[in-house]
């Protein structure tokens, strides 16, 4: 055999050996796609109507529904507590609205707080592993698989919306756990605007729970859709946001 012929055959053989797995991989039709029922939005947002919320003192419907469904542990030690949705005194949520003349009753008004799903989230900027990132539709997400527990995001968030699992959360989960994955010791968690529910065509659980008790203080929808209830409230011009001067552009709005 001439050397040229040998090289030709060897080259073809090598191409075949390399090409078979490539062709096999390309031939497989396997892939992933979005669920057809998923809710799609240009920019998800929430309006918290504080005036309606205050008509039901002591109501915990949204908090209980969220924490139950997402297996948020009820840790006893307040230094280690984990929260997705909770109520905070008005003076702490909107410190700029408090003057020396604000009565204590107003300062102490319980105000519902959660992750603000900012346009410009500092938590995302400081996360070294992109375990937290912002989706194009505005949701600030958590990928617990990637979280290394550095807590930069906790330091970065100006709203205290994030919690760290200082201990194994499972023993502190009240009642029978749901199918939602729990977290482990050493990761950060927070509200995700119920991304798992939007993916199957349902609205966030806190909103449904609030409607369920006949209050309707929480309005969720697409701020980018002029026909949505949220967009109408935002156009009304009475909404306010937490710490607007920081430039984070929160997308949880308040009617105080």
């Amino acid at each position, binding site marked *: 055999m001439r050397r040229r012929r040998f090289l030709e055959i060897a080259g073809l053989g090598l191409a075949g050996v390399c090409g078979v797995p490539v062709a096999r991989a390309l031939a497989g039709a396997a892939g*992933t796609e*979005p669920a057809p029922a998923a809710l799609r939005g240009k920019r998800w947002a929430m309006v918290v109507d504080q005036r309606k919320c205050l008509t039901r003192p002591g109501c915990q419907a949204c908090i209980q529904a969220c924490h139950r469904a997402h297996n948020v542990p009820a840790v006893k030690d307040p230094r280690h507590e984990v929260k997705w949705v909770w109520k905070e005194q008005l003076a702490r949520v909107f410190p700029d609205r408090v003057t020396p003349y604000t009565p204590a009753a107003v300062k102490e008004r319980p105000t519902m707080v959660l992750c603000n799903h900012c346009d410009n989230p500092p938590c995302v900027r400081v996360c070294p592993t992109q375990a937290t990132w912002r989706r194009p539709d505005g949701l600030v997400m958590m990928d617990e698989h990637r979280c290394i527990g550095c807590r930069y995001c906790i330091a970065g968030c100006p709203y205290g919306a994030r919690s760290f699992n200082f201990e194994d959360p499972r023993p502190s989960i009240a009642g029978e756990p749901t199918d939602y994955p*729990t977290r482990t010791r050493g990761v950060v968690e927070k509200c995700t605007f119920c991304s798992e529910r939007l993916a199957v065509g349902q609205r966030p659980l806190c909103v449904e729970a609030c409607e369920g008790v006949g209050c309707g203080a929480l309005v969720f929808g697409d701020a980018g859709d002029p026909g949505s209830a949220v967009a109408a409230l935002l156009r009304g011009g009475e909404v306010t946001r937490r710490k607007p001067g920081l430039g984070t552009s929160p997308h949880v709005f308040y009617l105080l």
Partner: protein
Amino acid sequence: MHDAGKVLLGLGAFAGLVTGPAWYAFARGKGDPPELQRPAGGGTCIEPTGWIRARHMELLDGWRDAAVRRDEHVYLASDGRRHAISLTGTCLGCHVEPAKFCDRCHAYAAVEVFCWDCHQQRKRSRP
């Protein structure tokens, strides 16, 4: 060669020591492949069994990235069927007791599974 006998003896002792645990395991019957609990309802897996056995970890990694990071929750299998991307829903829907399926092979191969640190593995019954 000087001291060939000693060298060979040493090599033999070394090989014996290194492979000792394996011989011990074989002698105790621990080398037998693990017995896996098959799904009660029969049926077929979402992909061919051999492919799943070899590459389920790649599939699950892809599922994780699709569902968590790209918001894609439907898996289009190579045979054209569609499945929900869900470890606890789709996989554990048939393999109801991972302790008698996943964990047995993983214990055999000494590969740690940490899925269950977060994902719930309550034994579930089919409707």
